[in-house]
């Protein structure tokens, strides 16, 4: 009985009865679509952050004075170079410029290729500046003077470069009002990975005001942040899934009620109870897998081609308008969604299928 033609028969029967399943198919696909989109967004953001982190050095050193970050100077740089195992120390200049007209901050980042009179801006900053008629050039307002620089290029923005203005180091110091020997933070290059932890511990011992963050610690912070956000979604999702499955069980039961005669005929020509259960299981598997794959493809398009309108605001806030997510597809995540959605779905149709299969034949035929 259970061979290829059995499966063939179930598929044909499913095509004939497709109306019965349309409701659950679309609602279920929608649920999977939302959960996949959320996870795609958070994974993509996390990946971008981690890639940016990997391009930095192994240890980041900042100057913390009573809870405020203060600039560092050359004396610290020389002292850090003395530590065994540190190959190189690079002083970085970076900071935030308050653009009061729109009540927001721009991230000022150093880009060495730029000359003294031009800047690059990220796509969303460029768009914003246009509104304020800064099309060709931009005026930085600093304490004593006005620095006017040409906008040479608008660069595409991802999660890191969004909200960013790129200037060279000379201009960065002028905009952020930093002295020539002042640095925002240091990046330490440590070639031997095993030494990172020791060096990170040693620095605060030498200078209690310095904070040393090894790369793995920052990485684990990012992980915590995004796992946590994902966790909240999961809880909300469980609530919606549970109500969906109750709905599904009732819907399937009522639909199956109208199919009693058909099943009775099948039983009377020799289908056993477990054959009927298997038949319904195969049909529902096809529906649920169809919904699963359709939802995943749709949410891929939604997030990575259309940049997730509406949903991205949950993660990035209202201000971010021009951002493109780096496509990241994690098989583990798809496996997770599979377990989360497909298995409870199949579990919730077991009892209705059984009820349908055990119907009394002579009763149903009346």
């Amino acid at each position, binding site marked *: 009985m259970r061979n290829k033609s059995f499966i063939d028969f179930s598929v044909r029967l499913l095509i004939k009865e497709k109306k019965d399943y349309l409701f659950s198919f679309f609602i279920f696909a929608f649920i999977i679509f939302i959960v996949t989109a959320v*996870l795609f967004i958070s994974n993509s953001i996390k990946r971008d952050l981690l890639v940016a982190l990997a391009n930095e050095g192994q240890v980041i050193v900042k100057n913390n004075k009573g809870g405020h970050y203060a600039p560092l100077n050359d004396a610290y740089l020389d002292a850090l170079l003395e530590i065994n195992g540190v190959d190189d120390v690079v002083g970085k200049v970076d900071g935030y410029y308050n653009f009061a007209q729109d009540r927001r901050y721009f991230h000022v980042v150093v880009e060495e290729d730029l000359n003294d009179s031009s800047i690059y801006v990220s796509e969303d900053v460029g768009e914003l500046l246009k509104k304020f008629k800064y099309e060709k050039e931009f005026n930085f307002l600093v304490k004593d003077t006005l620095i006017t620089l040409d906008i040479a290029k608008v660069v595409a923005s991802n999660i890191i470069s969004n909200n960013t203005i790129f200037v060279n180091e000379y201009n960065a110091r002028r905009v952020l009002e930093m002295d020539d020997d002042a640095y925002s933070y240091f990046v330490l290059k440590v070639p031997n990975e095993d030494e990172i932890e020791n060096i990170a511990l040693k620095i605060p011992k030498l200078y209690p005001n310095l904070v040393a963050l090894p790369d793995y610690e920052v990485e684990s912070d990012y992980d915590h942040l995004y796992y946590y956000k994902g966790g909240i979604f999961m*809880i909300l999702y469980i609530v919606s899934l549970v109500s969906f499955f109750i709905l599904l069980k009732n819907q399937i039961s009522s639909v199956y009620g109208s199919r009693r005669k058909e099943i009775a005929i099948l039983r009377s020509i020799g289908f056993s109870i477990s054959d009927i259960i298997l038949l319904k299981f195969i049909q529902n598997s096809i529906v649920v897998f169809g919904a699963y794959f359709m939802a995943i493809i749709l949410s891929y398009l939604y997030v990575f081609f259309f940049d997730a309108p509406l949903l991205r605001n949950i993660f990035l806030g209202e201000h971010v308008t021009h951002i493109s997510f780096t496509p990241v597809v994690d098989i*583990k995540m798809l496996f997770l969604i599979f*377990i989360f959605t497909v298995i*409870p779905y199949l*579990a919730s149709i077991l009892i209705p*299928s059984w009820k349908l299969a055990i119907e009394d034949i002579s009763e149903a035929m009346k």
Partner: protein
Amino acid sequence: MSIFLLDSIVVMFFVETVLLLLMGTSMFAVAKILKYWNFDASTTLQYALEKKNYLVNTIILFTIGVKIILFVFFVKSLDDLAPLVPGAMCATGVIGANKFGNTLLIYKIFTLFLLGVWVVINRLDLKTKKFDYLRKKYYLFIVIFALLGIEFALELLYFTNIPLNTPVFCCSVVFVVENLPFGLETVDLVKIFYLLFVSILVVDYFNKASLSFVLNILFLLLAYYCVTYFFGTYVYEEPNHKCPFCMLQKEYHYIGYLIWSTLFLGTYFGISPHIIYSLIGKKYQRLLRYNALFLTLFVAICSYYVISFYLRNGVFL
């Protein structure tokens, strides 16, 4: 640690709860069946019970399928936890993070074995005309249900007690001392491993279930040590990297899943005929064939790493 920290753990608990609920509902049917079952009676009750029997079978078969998928998922989640737990580089650190971890892992494998035995008994039962093993099958299921309830509690204890601030040991620390059984050297261990493998093949050929039972349990134990301390080093191509979990990671092409699953499947088919015989008194030696098949596959994969390393480099590690 909060169990809400990681999506996969939340999902795992959700699915486990669904399964327990399903099994719990079928428990009512089981109780009724055990109480009133009488195959020779032609009452309405008996017909209703026979119909319920189908439901319970379907639910348990579904549970078993999901449990196997969930086990893979569980191991995968342990790997995901590794970056969050300080000091852990792979699942070793995470599983050893508290006293429940190792127990839970062994317990999970044990319940999977039992569920597998249940499937076979169920098949045999359905083949008989009068459901001869029905009662035994359902008593076994009640035991399994209780065990799965304990497993759920254990899981909860394990995940809530993972420390996120105190560092745990990494596999390079846990497995650095060669903690081999019976005070054996690695070389002797590998010799015994192959010897045992050959004797299992012989025993399988002569269909000796009870002997196969003993040998397979021994083999499972030895194979664990051999993979961890000997074959693993060839998988990683590094003499000091001894870990049963790292081979599950992407860097080693997920080969660990194949290695461990063939070992477990193989020993399962070797052990279960004897258990089935002692439970329901029926000989079912056909499974021993699969025992030989999967163990050969397992040994072939392990040996392949050693041989290919030798051929490429001309030395053993």
